[in-house]
């Protein structure tokens, strides 16, 4: 796994801003915007080409929303679900296409690039590398999916409180009052696993691609192609599951029957 250039904003490592993630997230946003604009620019009654594809995705995401949030409240989430699905889908595929790696011999403090490490690897007789990756899936960095999951959780809780504060407070003590700690663990674990599921799938996929590329000839041929194809599949499934779970968590806070 190559190191990534980092922009330091504060005193400790926690303040580091991963520039690779910033760049690829911006590229993902631009790609999603271009796809949406291309689909909507010359719209006709009989859809064809790009418009047809995007209309299929919109109907697909509307189906996800409709099966979880019933009635009028669901209509508000059509745009959100579509945006979420398309963003995660594009982001997951982004890291599969190619990789941009730069080799550095001089340290660049502004980008967090350190000087080449002359100990260690050179002593073991291995080839010395001071490579920095400028391209990866934004979702392969844990901060992006976790941030999305926590944002969704905050919206879900906000919707629940606005619907009925009394019901929201009392559901922590259902069915027995001593279940309160379990509910707290549940509310913390939901966004954690929600974000980490997406991150771990994409991260494990990208690491395996890097391992295959560095491996022998037997790994870089057909197995790599098979794994790339499987990664496209996994990226689509994970985008779908992330959207479904976002809607499920919101419907749990909005539901009236329990």
């Amino acid at each position, binding site marked *: 796994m190559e190191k990534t250039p980092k922009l330091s904003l504060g005193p400790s490592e926690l303040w580091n801003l991963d520039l690779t993630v910033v760049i690829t997230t911006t590229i993902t946003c631009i790609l999603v915007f271009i796809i949406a604009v291309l689909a909507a620019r010359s719209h006709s009654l009989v859809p064809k080409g790009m418009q047809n594809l995007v209309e299929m995705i919109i109907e697909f995401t509307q189906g996800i929303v409709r099966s979880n949030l019933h009635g009028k409240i669901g209509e508000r989430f059509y745009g959100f679900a579509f945006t979420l699905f398309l963003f995660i889908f594009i982001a997951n595929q982004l890291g599969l296409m190619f990789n941009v790696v730069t080799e550095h011999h001089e340290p660049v403090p502004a980008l967090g690039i350190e000087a080449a490490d002359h100990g260690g690897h050179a002593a073991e007789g291995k080839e010395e590398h001071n490579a920095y990756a400028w391209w990866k899936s934004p979702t392969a960095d844990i901060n992006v999916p976790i941030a999305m999951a926590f944002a969704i959780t905050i919206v879900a809780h906000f919707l629940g409180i606005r619907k009925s504060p009394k019901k929201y407070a009392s559901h922590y003590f259902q069915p027995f009052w001593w279940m309160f700690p379990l509910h707290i663990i549940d509310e913390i674990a939901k966004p954690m696993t929600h974000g980490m*599921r997406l991150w*771990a*799938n994409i991260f*494990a996929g990208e*690491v395996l691609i890097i391992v295959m590329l560095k491996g022998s000839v037997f790994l870089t041929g057909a197995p790599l192609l098979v794994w790339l194809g499987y990664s496209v599949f996994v990226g689509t499934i994970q985008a779908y599951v992330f959207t479904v779970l976002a809607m499920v968590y919101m419907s749990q806070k909005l539901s009236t029957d329990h």
Partner: protein
Amino acid sequence: MEVLAGAIMLAFAAIGAGIGNALVFGRYLEGVARQPEARGMLFTQTFIGIALVEALPIIAVAFGIMSVLGIL
């Protein structure tokens, strides 16, 4: 030591994910055998189930890889 810890994490994640996915996919095949017309609906439900089952194993795999590579 970190490599060994990562290897154990990967192994147990593989065992857990194998058993979990087998249970989910086996039930899907049973369902399709009983009711072949429900295949389309069951297929999407199965993949949601597999993605949910695989969540914890794949997180363990990610941390195992990080442990083996020494990032963690």
